[in-house]
């Protein structure tokens, strides 16, 4: 097969170079691609039908990617490196390849009959809006994508500037304002009657999905045009969002949060599996003499198989002490999810939350409880605020050591979660040092970058002298910590 690869590469030098550029862009987006994978990618080019863009997309994904989370970034890059317009004519799957710059041409597949940009702009927007409503109601993905390409061309054009023509997704959205179509679409999907209740919720979800698909198609088309205008390297840098597990906990946006929650769930499960595996594996227990002799009777008195008593199960005790003040809200949410997952596997997990006072919150995390509910209930019911609702580590640690003196013992692992920003109050170092001394092991997870430790009101560097402080800014670092635990 290697001979075929080299001859194929020789015949298509440009293609090989193009692939190389693509692979490098994928690497830059934070997806590790080894040399052998790059070679495999070249081999893919010799096997798939190059005229079928989707085959190429899925084929390269099969060798370049190693995790499902990498797929969105990959798809954006693929669309930039192998844009639609590069497709040769005659591809049976698409009818709108000629969309580039010739909006007036009558597409074979399009049902839209638009004048050549003449006429009133508002009139055009109105008619396109009607068309969009019809397409969203039908839910034909391919037609919707075709429409998005056309909409960007007709409505997304910014006034020409000396630096060239540019297109903006927001102009399209403003002209079409698809969100205001929801009521109309719901009425269309539900028919007469059936408002409220299950049917409406289901229809709403369908509308949401289709609107999101339309928005994604518009964004992709804007990126494609920008890449043609300004070069794809510049677009690639700004268009590719960081992978979900590398998003900063403290800077995560709403969309990232949902994604992050999905990555934390398997992480917690993995941690639980690791800990329970540690419990079950290892050295087998003491020799069970009676059973061994009994079993040897079957092999003529030769003890071929030895039997052992099961080992005593070591039950790990974990105490989680978590800052739930506003500044680290995003971070503490994920760590509490971890706590919750651990609660489902071990009985010996206790959780404490603090802002400027501490309260035990283990009761909110009974197995099967919902984490978002638990977080909300901590805010409402737990006694974590004594004074003004700003973090006070000194007081929080004192309250903890005072009210639950037996929580930390020689069998306990202590986990402190917080940014160590004390609002210039007492850090309570001696209390923490004492807790660390009493515990079996103690770690502090800090969601702030290491270079900020000790700056301003952060006492992280001083805490770091008495406890093992670990930087934990994103899901990847959390996973790394979990594996060393």
């Amino acid at each position: 097969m290697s001979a075929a690869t080299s001859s194929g590469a020789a015949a298509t030098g440009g293609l090989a170079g193009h692939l190389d550029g693509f692979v490098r862009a994928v690497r830059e987006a934070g997806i590790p691609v080894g040399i052998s994978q790059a070679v495999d990618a070249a081999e893919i080019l010799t096997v798939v039908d190059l005229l079928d863009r989707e085959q190429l997309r899925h084929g390269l994904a099969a060798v370049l990617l190693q995790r499902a989370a990498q797929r969105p970034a990959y798809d954006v890059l693929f669309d930039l490196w192998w844009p639609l317009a590069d497709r040769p004519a005659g591809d049976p799957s698409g009818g709108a390849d000629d969309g580039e710059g010739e909006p007036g041409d009558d597409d074979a597949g399009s049902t839209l009959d638009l004048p050549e940009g003449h006429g009133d702009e508002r009139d055009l927007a109105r008619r396109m809006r009607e068309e969009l409503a019809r397409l969203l109601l039908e839910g034909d993905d391919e037609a919707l994508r075709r429409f998005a390409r056309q909409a960007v061309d007709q409505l997304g054009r910014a006034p020409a500037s000396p630096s060239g023509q540019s297109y903006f997704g927001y102009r399209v959205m403003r002209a079409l304002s698809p969100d205001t179509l929801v009521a109309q679409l719901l009425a269309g999907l539900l028919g007469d009657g059936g408002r409220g209740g299950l049917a409406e919720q289901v229809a709403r979800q369908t509308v949401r999905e289709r609107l999101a698909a339309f928005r994604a198609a518009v964004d992709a088309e804007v990126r494609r045009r920008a890449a043609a205008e300004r070069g794809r390297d510049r677009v690639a840098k700004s268009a590719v969002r960081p992978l979900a597990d590398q998003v900063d906990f403290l800077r995560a946006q709403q969309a990232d949060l949902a994604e992050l929650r999905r990555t934390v769930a398997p992480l917690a499960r993995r941690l639980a599996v690791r800990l329970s595996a540690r419990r079950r594996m290892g050295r087998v227990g003491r020799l069970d003499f009676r059973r061994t002799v009994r079993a040897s009777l079957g092999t003529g008195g030769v003890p071929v198989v030895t039997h052992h008593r099961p080992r005593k199960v070591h039950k790990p005790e974990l105490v989680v002490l978590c800052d739930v003040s506003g500044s680290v809200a995003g971070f503490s949410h994920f760590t509490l999810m971890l706590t919750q997952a651990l609660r489902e596997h071990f009985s010996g997990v206790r959780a404490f939350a603090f802002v400027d006072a501490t309260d035990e919150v283990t009761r909110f995390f009974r197995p099967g409880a919902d984490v978002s509910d638990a977080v909300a209930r901590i805010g409402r019911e737990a006694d974590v605020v004594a004074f003004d609702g700003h973090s006070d580590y000194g007081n929080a640690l004192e309250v903890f050591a005072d009210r639950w003196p037996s929580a930390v013992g020689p069998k306990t692992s202590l986990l402190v979660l917080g940014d160590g920003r004390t609002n210039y109050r007492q850090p309570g170092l001696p209390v923490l040092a004492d807790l660390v001394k009493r515990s079996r092991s103690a770690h502090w997870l800090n969601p702030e970058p290491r270079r900020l430790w000790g700056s301003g009101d952060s006492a992280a560097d001083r805490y770091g002298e008495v406890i093992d402080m670990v930087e934990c800014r994103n899901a990847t670092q959390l996973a790394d910590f979990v594996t060393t635990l």
Partner: protein
Amino acid sequence: MPRPPTQTPQFSSVADVSKRLATAGYLPDAQIATTVFLADRLGKPLLVEGPAGTGKTELAKALAAATGSELIRLQCYEGLDEARALYEWNYKKQLLRIQAAQGADGADWHAVHDDVFGEEFLLSRPLLTAIRRTEPTVLLIDETDKADVEVEGLLLEVLSDFQVTIPELGTIAATRRPTVVLTSNATRELSEALKRRCLYLSLDYPSAEREREIVLSRVPDLAPGLAEQLVRTIRALRALELKKSPSISETLDWAQTLLELGLDTLDETAVRSTLGVVLKHASDQDRAAAELRLN
């Protein structure tokens, strides 16, 4: 990189893959069909990863049926070792053989020694069985993430060269390379080395259209309108943040349930009474009931 002699490919094109898998009762999308086609062409193992119940194991079974191969399955679990995955000597039988030889006088130790390490005393486990077969074979290594890291090392050796070295017998190389499918629920990250040797296919919940087709092909008696309603409801459930989103197999169970109960529309009452078929956590059921306004 030396590779064992490539087999003649079993599929002629991506469309061929789609058609034959569909005949075997599995409706692949473009991604699945393309990746399966490439795995067949390049002779690489296929690593299928995704949430439970998205048809990973089913894909391997359909692949076996479509190519007329026998399916050999290695179910991974924690504590799986070489003796369970590769081969084992039947030591009880060996012991009997030695004792029998001691009974007969003038037993030659060398003859006995050569004898007890022969084919007769070898217990072949799935990996060795798959390698030794001369007929077309699909080797399914199920739930690879459940096995220990050591097993991955073993798999690396077997999957890169398709040969096994048994000290007493010598090296056994595959005469006919099996089609290998590994599945994983991603509960732990598989090693980079293993992933690099495989083609990666990530299976997620299908698009609405494909899921409807799957429902109609598996539960053909269901009315198309009801199937549409069912799939949309399932998608609404998946959009909620549940502990365990309903999988394809649960969609099919639900379809079957509706059919058995003779329900012809999926309204609040019907959903409320059959929600247990798709949601298996009490907290998930509560949340779905609240969000979908079932009460």
